[in-house]
């Protein structure tokens, strides 16, 4: 039972990560490989604040979100000026640099040894210690993330993002400030990602840089894509599939040494398969390229 709750909590954490990334990748068409960096910022801020200053959980949560947002602006503002390919490489660079900072500033972040003994959340005297309590916490925070994202997606701003995804030049020509919108969504995405980091840090009570590597970023991207780009419910589906499926493998009796490899092979293979046969993922609507425009054109033509 504890094990099942643990899986559900993980699904919750990854849902927050994938919903926030979906805003960027699925709705705005911006592929960022730096998402794990913001996840990490959230985790490290809450850990450092709690360990060094013993500040309360809600304050730490707030600070983590703000810090991640600021970091998001720092990364986003220069990077979003770059063309597609180069933007992706820039986020790759930021991801690696962030990892280096987390791993090398040993005095500050504990370096490779990480930060153990992170206090569990204490909200106005109500302590969150059991799995059930954490699950409720992650559901609440996940719900808030989903609600915010949904509001954004259904708003005029959300429609602007989709327009940018489909034809950026046209949107610019129509007089809208594209760079502004992109930076805004990038910062929002980063801030929401940090929430997942806060939950992760206070749940596992130990963090180290290896949880926030480029491979983690790619994993989150896979969840977004497989679950469904531009569909928030799809991100939940993706998180369920990619977190729960490999866990089922444990019951087949694979030796532990290769279990992690098989898990990665699974989502790597799913990524390739989906790109070949269903790039929009399970529930998504965005097919990542010209194909989407063409199929809509043929839809319109066939309706006539």
């Amino acid at each position, binding site marked *: 039972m504890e094990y099942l709750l643990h899986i559900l909590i993980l699904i919750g954490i990854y849902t927050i990560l994938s919903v926030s990334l979906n805003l960027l990748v699925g709705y705005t068409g911006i*592929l960022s490989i730096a998402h794990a960096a913001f996840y990490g910022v959230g985790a490290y801020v809450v850990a450092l604040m709690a360990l060094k200053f013993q500040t309360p959980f809600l304050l730490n949560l707030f600070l983590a979100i703000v810090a991640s947002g600021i970091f998001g602006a720092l990364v986003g503002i220069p990077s979003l000026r770059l063309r597609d390919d*180069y933007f992706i490489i*820039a986020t*790759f660079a930021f991801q690696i640099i962030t990892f280096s900072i987390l*791993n*090398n500033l040993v005095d500050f972040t504990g370096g490779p040894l990480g930060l153990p003994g992170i206090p569990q959340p204490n909200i106005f005297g109500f302590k969150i210690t059991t799995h059930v309590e954490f699950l409720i916490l992650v559901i609440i925070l996940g719900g808030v993330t989903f609600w915010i994202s949904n509001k954004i997606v259904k708003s005029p701003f959300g429609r602007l993002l989709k327009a940018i995804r489909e034809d950026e030049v046209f949107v610019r020509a129509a007089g809208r400030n594209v760079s502004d919108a992109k930076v805004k969504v990038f910062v929002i995405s980063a801030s929401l990602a940090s929430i997942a980091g806060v939950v992760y840090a206070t749940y596992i009570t130990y963090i180290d840089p290896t949880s926030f590597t480029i491979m983690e970023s790619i994993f989150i991207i896979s969840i977004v894509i497989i679950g469904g780009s531009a569909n928030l419910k799809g991100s939940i589906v993706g998180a369920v599939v990619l977190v729960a499926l490999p866990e089922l493998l444990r019951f087949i009796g694979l030796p532990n040494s290769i279990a992690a490899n098989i898990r*990665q092979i699974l989502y790597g293979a799913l990524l390739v398969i989906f*790109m*070949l046969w269903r790039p929009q993922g399970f529930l998504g609507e965005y097919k990542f390229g*010209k194909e989407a425009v063409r199929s809509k054109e043929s839809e319109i033509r066939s309706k006539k």
Partner: protein
Amino acid sequence: MMFIYLVRQSVSKTVNIQYIFNILLYSAVTIDVAISFLLIYIVTRFFHFAHAVVFTSGAYFTFLFSKLLGCSLLVAIPLAVLCACTLGCLMEIVVYKPLRKKKSSSLILLLASLGIYIVLQNVISMVFGDDTKSIRTWPVVEGIDVFGARITEVQIIIIVASVVLLILVAGYLSLAKTGKAMRAVANDPELANISGINSNKVILISFAIGSALAGIAGILVSLDVDMTPTMGMNALMMGVVAMIVGGVGSIWGIVLGSLLLALAQNLGVWYISSQWQDAIAFAILLIFLLFKPEGFFGKKLKKANI
């Protein structure tokens, strides 16, 4: 200006031969990787991440043939290069070409490439283990003394091999029929097609040569510092940094970019500790991306294709 001061200071410290050798060695590998990647990138215009695992596979195939199947290195190495070449071609045939046929965007190709990388890198980890493997049949030596610096014979081979490969590739692109066809496709795929060049065939050839070169690079590196399943990603990223700094599409740009990168990283180790090597490389990349995205020798690219 501070940068120039630092460079002047460092130059006076590094006219030390050992440093020059280190930089030559380091850039040699980067040049190899970057050229092998460039051949594929200019023709296909997408980020073939899985190239990193083709690089790694060269080394591991050699390990398979020499240590596990008992062939001598003379036999194992060419076989391994052939296998790496085949692996790259398979990726093109099984995944990329079908995707191109569906008019998939370069983003889809990039994502598929990521998936391929993850699958194959983990296969290597599973089959061979995550620990460091070696194909060396000779003991680790200090190296011979050349003008007061130490360099091993293997390292000399690496530098020489890279120079040879560099000249061969440059010559191929300028003189050979398929090499010129590659440049045509790279320049303007539609025009190339209309002129009678089969772009699919050219792309397959670029994958074949690029993958073979990557395999060779992987083998060269492992002869010097052994192999791990994840060594490809790092090598590839350094190659990409060199490519961008030098200017995409320019071979001499790659040479300059690699030398610059090697210089900066070696200097970085002098002033700051070596754990920051990666960060330094990527910081340089970011500076170039933001202020000089066309690199040293590249063309200024249009912001958007209308």
